[in-house]
């Protein structure tokens, strides 16, 4: 079983433990299905959530939950839609960055709208990247760089796509 991550063709051969785990948050069922497929195609393990509240619950930040250590969850990346009813992606980003346990997790915001003030706001709050929808395979490949396992610093050998 190839444990080297320098070859993208080894992506199908990575076992459960080695695949990065991405939490994808979007209120659109179509988009959840799409992002899930895009991510699994890049050899990621995916958990989807339909809104910010569910995402927080998964991360252990729900109301009344005691916070969990991310080493239990092993979420390597959060990708969230910006426009969602209830809690926006920006608000979710803030909550993650405010949490001492979870703030290290890179958060990528996606939106169908290219609004510079929105983009700046998210980046200032600590978003890793802001991407425009609809997402393509090439967009998701770029994200692999952010999905290094926590505690295993990137030594520059991570595949950044073909």
């Amino acid at each position, binding site marked *: 079983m190839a444990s080297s991550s320098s070859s993208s063709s080894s992506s199908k051969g990575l076992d459960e433990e080695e695949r990065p785990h991405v939490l994808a948050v979007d209120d659109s069922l179509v988009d959840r299905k799409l992002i899930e497929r895009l991510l699994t195609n890049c050899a990621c393990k995916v958990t989807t959530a339909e809104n910010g509240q569910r995402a927080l619950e998964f991360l252990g930040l729900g109301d009344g939950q005691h916070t969990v250590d991310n080493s239990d969850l092993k979420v390597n990346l959060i990708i969230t839609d910006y426009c969602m009813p209830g809690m926006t992606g920006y608000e979710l980003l803030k909550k993650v960055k405010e949490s001492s346990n979870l703030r290290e997790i890179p958060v990528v915001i996606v939106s*169908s709208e290219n609004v510079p003030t929105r983009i700046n706001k998210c980046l200032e709050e600590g978003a890793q990247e802001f991407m425009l929808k609809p997402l393509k395979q090439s967009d998701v490949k770029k994200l692999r760089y952010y999905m290094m396992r926590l505690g295993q610093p990137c030594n520059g050998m991570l595949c950044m796509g073909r």
Partner: protein
Amino acid sequence: MDVGQLQTRFVDYRKSMFCEGLLDSQFIQLQQLQDESNPDFVVEVVSLFFEDSEKLLNELSKTLGQQTIDFKKVDAHVHQLKGSSSSIGAQRVKNACIAFRNYCEEENIEGCLRCVQQAKQEYFLVKGKLETLFRLEQQIVVAGGVIPMVE
């Protein structure tokens, strides 16, 4: 019809959908995500799009039929429809939504009523054609042929 003829018919039909602007390159992205381990991916996503869209279009008609129109609600629905149509590459539906949102912003009732009709028209057009496309695809599969990839 032999497999070759079925494949040609399928390719031509698909090409025409792109030429007519019904589909854009995002649909190609979807097709590229389909493989042996996910052989029905496109049909699955498009089916979700159909369900979602019909719900939204019904909601839109209802909301626009109210005594006092909640334009924020209308805009939210159109935004959703724009998003999902964009995600599957249903270009003309997406474009109809872009125009629609402008009228929502202006709180222009007449404009919105025209737009919902336009959006419905475009939606049912692309739906019918996609269903035909999937049928043509099935005929190839049943005949034991391979579905031609997009060039």
